[in-house]
């Protein structure tokens, strides 16, 4: 006897492949979604009674396709429906379909579906929303809750995004290897966006958005199963697993953010860490470095350190240097400076980031870092100035509160400094 949950889980697991195949048949996201919905409802009724089909995905595609064909026929010709028996007698048809749908078909179908959701015409937040709705199958209220918007507004956003897709050219042909590689990277970036949507924000927001992190990891696993020899996809999955492993330690009981070196490492999810490390170890063997792999390798070094003092900062600094070459960005350099400070001291870090002052002028973390390095150098005036700037740039109350504590500590360390008589 199967667990009643089993049907639900099997439907969820089959969803990306089934919707993707239905999209290829009908070339309409709405029709593909409705067809899948219909098939899922029939599965919920049939499977617990008749037992699960040999291939749940093929069953859902078959039933969904027939249901949607009915719908199309009804609305185009108003002709009579085929008898129900032709639908329910699926055994041979299913086997036939499994024969025809080899892995290659599935792979390009699912990639197309993911790629449609990562369409460059869509703003990033719409990409994320569409992927959550169509690929992951989250309900509109679930997504609305994660984005703190009303259901109606979310419904409209999804409708608009779908309309945009319908107008653009969705490539239904078999992609060339180069096109396939481009799509894989567009999709990987979109998956990372989904994760970041779930990972950013304060404690309360993060709680509501945690499902987005889980969905992003599921999508990354899906992509990795489709392209199991792509080191960057291993890197992406490793990165998400390693970052998410710290979820339970990121906020304290009052909802205040806890910095990496102050986190209670016993709260880190060791299972996720072990898998993340296994994946990055495997990816590195390919010797095709990429930005996701480098970031995952950095996260893995933090994850391997039993205490903050065990962190291999020299290796982290080298990895950030590599990342700087791959994706030059002042933020990456700022991160390298934090590692450099641990090896060569705060002055070296300050020298490294001095040229970034203009580029990162509005960036909270830049001023926070300058404040921290200056304080370590005993330059109270510069530290104070930088911390005040950081508060001005803070986007959340908890960021501002964190810097205020830094200022309080500074005042306690250097009580003679008369500048502290002024309120901040």
């Amino acid at each position, binding site marked *: 006897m*199967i*667990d009643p*949950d*089993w049907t639900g*889980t*099997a439907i*969820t*697991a*089959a969803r990306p492949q089934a919707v993707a195949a239905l999209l290829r048949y009908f070339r309409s996201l709405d029709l593909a979604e409705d067809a899948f919905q219909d098939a899922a409802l029939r599965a919920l009724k049939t499977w617990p009674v008749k037992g*699960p089909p040999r*291939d749940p995905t093929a069953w859902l595609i078959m039933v969904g396709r027939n249901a949607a064909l009915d719908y199309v026929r009804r609305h185009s010709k108003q002709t009579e429906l085929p008898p129900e028996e032709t639908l329910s007698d699926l055994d041979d048809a299913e086997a036939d379909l499994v024969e025809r749908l080899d*892995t290659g078909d599935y792979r390009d179908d699912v990639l197309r579906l993911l790629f449609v959701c990562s369409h460059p015409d869509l703003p990033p937040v719409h990409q994320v929303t569409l992927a959550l709705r169509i690929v992951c199958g989250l309900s509109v209220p679930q997504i609305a809750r994660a984005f703190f918007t009303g259901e109606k507004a979310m419904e409209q956003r999804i409708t608009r995004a779908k309309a945009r897709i319908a107008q653009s050219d969705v490539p239904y042909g078999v992609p060339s290897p180069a096109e396939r590689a481009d799509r894989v990277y567009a999709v990987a970036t979109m998956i990372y966006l989904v994760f970041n949507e779930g990972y950013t924000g304060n404690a309360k927001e993060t709680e509501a958005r945690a499902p987005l992190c*889980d969905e992003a990891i*599921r999508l990354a*696993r899906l992509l*990795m*199963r489709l392209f*199991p*020899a792509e080191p960057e996809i*291993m890197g992406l*999955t490793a990165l998400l697993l390693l970052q998410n492993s710290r979820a339970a330690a990121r906020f304290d009981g009052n909802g205040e953010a806890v910095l990496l070196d102050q986190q209670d490492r016993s709260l880190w999810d060791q299972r996720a860490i*072990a*898998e993340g490390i*296994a*994946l990055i170890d*495997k990816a590195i*063997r390919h010797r095709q470095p990429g930005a996701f792999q480098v970031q995952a390798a950095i996260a893995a070094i933090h994850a391997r350190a039993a205490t903050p003092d065990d962190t291999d900062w020299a290796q982290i600094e080298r990895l950030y240097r590599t990342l700087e070459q791959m994706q030059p960005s002042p933020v990456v350099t700022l991160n390298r400076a934090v590692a450099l400070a641990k090896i060569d001291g705060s002055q070296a870090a300050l020298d490294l980031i001095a040229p970034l002052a203009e580029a990162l002028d509005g960036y909270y973390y830049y001023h926070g870092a300058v404040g921290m390095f200056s304080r370590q150098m005993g330059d109270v005036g510069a530290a104070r100035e930088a911390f005040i700037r950081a508060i001005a740039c803070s986007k959340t109350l908890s960021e501002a509160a964190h810097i205020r504590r830094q200022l309080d500590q500074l005042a306690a360390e250097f009580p003679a400094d008369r500048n502290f008589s002024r309120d901040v």
Partner: protein
Amino acid sequence: MHYAILCYDSEEVICAWSKEKDAQVMHDLGAVQDRLVAERKMGPVARLMPTTAAVSLRKGRDTLVLDGPFAETKEQLLGFYTVECDTLDEAIEAAKDLAAASGSAGCFEIRPMMIFIPDRRTP
């Protein structure tokens, strides 16, 4: 006789479990394992990471390390139990209890073991 109970199921479905569902299944399986331990039948148990985390070593004159196994099949080897039972029937009974607790579809393969070295590591 020592038997290996090899657990096959769809990785895709297992990876779609929520954390709560996963914890519940592990808890239920743990209860059966505890009973088998009390009956002194239970040997080492392993749950494997997804096949996507694995590499394969092709044997030959030059060994070759490859990604995978690439799953061509619908079900993957997800883990195994080892049990020591007097008869195959007894091993099948143990597997049946574990299967009921797992609440999942998939398949258990019960394979007699030729060599069994529980732990060669020195403490």
